[in-house]
């Protein structure tokens, strides 16, 4: 068969398959592009369906700015604690014998329904729960743990740890171990080897881990409601509140627009240069 004929056949295949790809492009139009457009559109309407910029003006009042800052602060703390717990874990995991099995076991809890894990902490952190029993035993006495910032941070970190471990583990796996050996041979201390060789070479994994934690942490609303009572208000809680409780879709959409903008900025900050080159 000549090349031209073969080329024609492949081209024909492309055309035939095109019919089957219609649902995919319909999906992009209806469920990717349309929703974003709708969110932006709705952000210009107030609760009485009047076209207005008032939602945006409202967003820049101290109430909403403070909420946004708070949400950032919590998301930052959650990401930070997840990272300092996850990095050593990932590092030790790569040194174990059956590392894939151990990794699977670390990731397994993340398959378990999120709600159930949050619910477990209602029991553990409750007035008579295990945590308070330990505190009692230590002589500290019972504390109010549930519905505090601490419980919110703890449960969030608990839930996000596997998502931080995974990319860091993959980055560490790709690390060429002879570089570490070389650093040690040249007399670098363990800390220098870590800070000058290992960490910089796995920074991409750290970045994608932070991205996988920070963005969802900004938009948590289920954990805040269950574990933090209504003490902690994140951007996610605010959106849920406006859409489902006060029915002020315009303001909810405005907060969503800012969340999308923040998301894009974070992705640009954490997106690695190498990846961008390949794409």
């Amino acid at each position, binding site marked *: *068969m000549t090349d031209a004929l*073969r080329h024609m056949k*492949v081209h*024909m*295949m*492309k055309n*035939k*398959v*095109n019919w089957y*790809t219609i649902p*995919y*492009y319909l*999906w*992009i139009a209806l*469920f*990717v*592009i349309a*929703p974003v457009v*709708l*969110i932006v559109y*709705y952000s210009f309407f107030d609760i009485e369906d009047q076209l207005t910029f008032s939602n945006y003006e409202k967003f820049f009042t101290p109430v909403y700015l403070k909420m946004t800052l708070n949400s950032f602060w919590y998301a930052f703390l959650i990401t930070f604690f997840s990272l300092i*717990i996850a990095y050593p*874990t990932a590092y*030790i995991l790569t040194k*174990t*014998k059956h590392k894939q099995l*151990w990794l699977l*076991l*670390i990731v397994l*809890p993340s*398959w*378990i*329904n999120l*709600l*159930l894990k*949050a*619910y*477990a902490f*209602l*029991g*553990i952190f*409750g007035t*008579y*729960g*295990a945590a308070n029993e330990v505190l009692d035993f230590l002589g500290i006495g019972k504390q109010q743990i549930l519905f505090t910032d601490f419980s919110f941070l703890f449960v969030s970190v608990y839930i996000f*740890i596997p998502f931080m471990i995974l990319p860091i583990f993959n980055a560490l796996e790709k690390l060429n171990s002879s570089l570490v050996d070389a650093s040690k041979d040249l007399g670098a201390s363990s800390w220098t080897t870590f800070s000058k060789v290992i960490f910089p070479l796995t920074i991409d994994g750290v970045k994608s881990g932070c991205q996988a934690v920070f963005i*969802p942490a900004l*938009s948590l*609303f289920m954990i805040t*409601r*269950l574990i933090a009572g209504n003490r902690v208000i994140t*951007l996610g809680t605010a*959106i849920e509140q406006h*859409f*489902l409780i006060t029915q002020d*879709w315009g303001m909810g*959409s405005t907060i*969503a627009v800012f969340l*999308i903008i923040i*998301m894009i900025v974070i992705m640009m900050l954490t997106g690695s240069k190498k990846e961008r080159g390949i794409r």
Partner: protein
Amino acid sequence: MNKLSKASVLYLILIFILLYAPIFYLIFYSFNSGGTMHDFQSFTWKWYKELFQDTRLLVIVLNTIIVALLSASIATIIGVFGAISLSMMRRKRLRNTVLSLNNVLIVSPDVIIGASFLIFFTILGIKLGFVSVLLSHIAFSIPIVVIMVLPKLQEMSPTLMDAAFDLGAGWKEVLSKVILPYISPGIYAGFFMALTYSLDDFAVTFFVTGNGFSTLSVEIYSLARRGISLNINALSALLFFLTLLLVIGYYFVSKRTVRRHKPGVNK
């Protein structure tokens, strides 16, 4: 291989305890006749029996499974053709644009997906309930299927297709006898991921579900907001073992397909 230091082993053990303790805590108290998540009194199957007599909850479990299976299947079909279409694109810019659009729903926070879909369904006049939940689950599962299938398509040598054409195969045969078998590990992985996405989803469903229809996650949320009931504990024990079975099953299926394809793939 260096031996792990004692401190490292201890650290790892601590992390494992931290990750698993809450789950086992839940399961442990599902056998408590006392009815609370503290002060274990005596062993009982009571909460499990109650669970199986609760027809409302059983209907919800059934709903959840039906939505998961249907949405994962449909998303897999749409996603596979999407991935094939992407892999055939020659123009790099176009391909990158489509790929970026594909990934939007993967990186978007659940609240935004839920809120925007709620607006979308309301505008179209689609009644909130089974249909809106199913459509949403299909929608957020498609991109993950594409992401799982695309690498397989890209590693497939184009000469494989040329050879099939040379030997006189039609495009349907090339698709069903060459392309689909080759990318099947990716398809399984995509389907499995879609299944777990659907089973796990709370936030999106919470936004687009009406009064009459509920999935397990949404139901657990409303139960948990009312306080502790050991029925949820019993339910979570069952779900834990189901998840375990799913993951182990998937582990073996993926191992088997890897072995089967090894002679051809040889990575």
